[in-house]
């Protein structure tokens, strides 16, 4: 005969262990599904980035590359890391601090033309801030 208190405790421990392992497995799976990897324009151009998978890319918006459609809010521009550039297409409103010659981070999918179809465009939030990915990208290139 097991002491009732101990039995109760054992039941709880089993329940917690099972639910914790299920939760962990599910969390790990969902994290992998929803992780957006960061690629530099050079990596995309040489084909290191997977096609049709949600990812992020960043760099400087090339001066003079921003084009707007006549009838809709469709936009396209080039993002460059200094050596290569990638064409980005986006439809919607750009953030306030987005401008040519400034850094940006975009989230979206790449098609077989190596064009990035963005669903989100982020610009920096204040004058002195550079997203860590872009800061490191420039650092690696010795800029």
């Amino acid at each position, binding site marked *: 005969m097991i002491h009732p208190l101990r039995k109760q405790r054992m039941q709880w421990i089993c329940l917690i262990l099972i639910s914790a392992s299920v939760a962990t497995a599910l969390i790990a799976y969902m*994290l992998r599904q929803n992780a957006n990897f960061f690629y530099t324009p050079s990596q995309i151009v040489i084909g290191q980035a997977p096609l049709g998978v949600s990812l992020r890319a960043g760099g400087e918006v090339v001066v003079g590359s921003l084009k707007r459609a006549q009838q809709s*809010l469709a936009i396209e521009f080039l993002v460059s890391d200094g050596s290569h550039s990638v064409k980005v297409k986006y439809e919607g409103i750009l953030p*306030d601090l987005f401008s040519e010659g400034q850094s940006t981070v975009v989230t979206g999918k790449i098609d077989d033309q190596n064009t990035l179809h963005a669903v989100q465009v982020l610009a920096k939030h204040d004058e*002195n801030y550079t997203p860590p990915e872009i800061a490191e990208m420039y650092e690696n290139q010795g800029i």
Partner: protein
Amino acid sequence: MSVFLSPDLGHIALIIGSCLAFVQALIPLAGSYTGTVRWMQMGRSLACGNLFFVFLAFLCLLNAFLSDDFTVRYVAQNSNTLLPTYFKFSAVWSAHEGSLLLWVLILSMWTAAVALLGSRLPLQFLSRTLAILGLISVGFGFFLLLTSNPFERTFPLPPIDGQDLNPLLQDIALILHPPLLYLGYVGLAVPFAFAISALLESRFDSAWANWSRPWTIASWCFLTVGIFLGSWWAYYELGWGGWWFWDPVENASLMPWLVTTALVHSLIASEQRGVFRGWTVLLAIFAFSLSLLGTFLVRSGVLTSVHAFASDPERGIYILLFLSIVVGSTLALFAIRGPVLMSSSSYSGTSRETFLLINNLILTVAVAVVLLGTLYPLISDAFGLGKISVGPPYFNFFFVPLTFVLLIFIPLAMRSSWGNVSTKALSSWLMQPLLLSLLLGLIGSTTLAYWVGEKENSLLAIVTLTCVSWVSVMIFKDLRDKIKSSSFTLLPVRYYGMVLAHLGVAVTVLGAGLYAASGIQRDVKMGIGDSAVLGGYTFYLSDIKRDRRSNFSFTQAEIIVSKEGREVVTLNPEKRHYFSNPQTMTEAAIDPGLLRDLYVSLGEPLDDDHWAIRLHVKPFVRCIWLGGAMISLGGLLAVLDKRYRRRKICSRDRANLPVQSASEL
């Protein structure tokens, strides 16, 4: 007066304050072990002295802002002669150095409050608590002085004018948001210090839980107000129209809130029944650790965030070091003293204890989900697995179902009694509300679908309305029974607090769920004379004009909204250009309403007098913040309860008493 409050005086006051905190960390603690009453009593006056000097330092920085003293680097970077006076106040805590000074000031306030209001605590316990709070204050005081001194001067030549406050922060909600959030964040140091003192003297009776409860609820209240205020600010100021973005900085405040919510509830069980003691202590430790982690995430800039401001990695390392010392040493202490915390009473499968435990488990899982999602990019980067970010779909996938499960269990915990409930009794008073809420859910979602002009009911709307009705029906049933059996005025204030807070949760979920299910948004290109139709409303752009105010010029659109030929409202969204800063700002125009918000914001100017304009119709979005207000007010009522002001309380372990009725919350 203003000459007297110089930045140098502020610097010196901060040094003296930190030294006093150091003494406060040593003497009362030593006294509590040697039994020297005089040493222990020093804690109280040291805490007040610390508050005096830190407050003096804060006044000096405030004075530097008000008198445009640009010889101080921090003022030069965050203020401007053109800035309106009330924004000079909030500019004090708008960036790293000042907000840390505010952190330290608020810690001193909480410490002094414990010292002054804690007269019913035993001297030994009080002195240890004050010593631990002093230790935390020392850590942050030195962090401030060594890595981020707000009083640093600009040499050799001060600038003629400052760089101005970030325009995003020039807003009334941002005057209040950081202090309130910090009151909550830092307030968690108090239950933490209580838990550590309890571990030091192995004292976990119901008296201990009773002392800890009002402090925990108070800081939880501030945290709630702070988070909801931040979400409200993001809604109308960022110009995107969302209310929660699963951004690392938002998650940093959500995690301690979830843990504290769990703590508030497990403290009830610990006080009333003597159960979950170890768990309660762990939660108190985690709540404060997560608030430190939040400070680290926000201040180190290690994560890409829409909220990230310029930051310095050296500061991040300091906080991380501090965090690891705090977590490491307290968990070690917990491991040593843990075995004392075994529960002394038992409870059956269906009882209030069980339901509280389930609610605690759900909240803990939610925290784990948010924590892993927030830290995964850091872990992945550290192990060279690539630079990633985790998007909202991950968080929503877990958080939304968890919230609904939590809603199902809330009324069960409220209605059942301590110890044991017979399953028969349970199911007999559950059937009626269950059927009623299912019915309400179906009727409600059909009405909603008809109202917003959709053909089908959305699943999200049905589930939301059913769960919300379930909570509300059960709460009102409980309220009616309680009033019938006792009387309206005899019920304790904390009971009304509990009812209000839980109804608030239901109202917030109602807003979030219905907004997600039936909110509509469209980005359109419009020129003067164009109109667009959205959700039955016609938006007509009648005019665009340009003008200027004190420190910015702006472009303002005039949009007339009408429904079925009748004019509803005229909205004036703005685009602002600040003089001192090349930054542009979007000011959305909102027509608020309990049932729906109309939200219009200007995007960017396109070619020849056309603008990109974002239009939203947001049903019930206001309920999100209404619910937040109810939750906080409920917490406030709970803190005001007489139970926490009793001078002497029965130190007998309540767990040994016979089973109490459900009304004894």
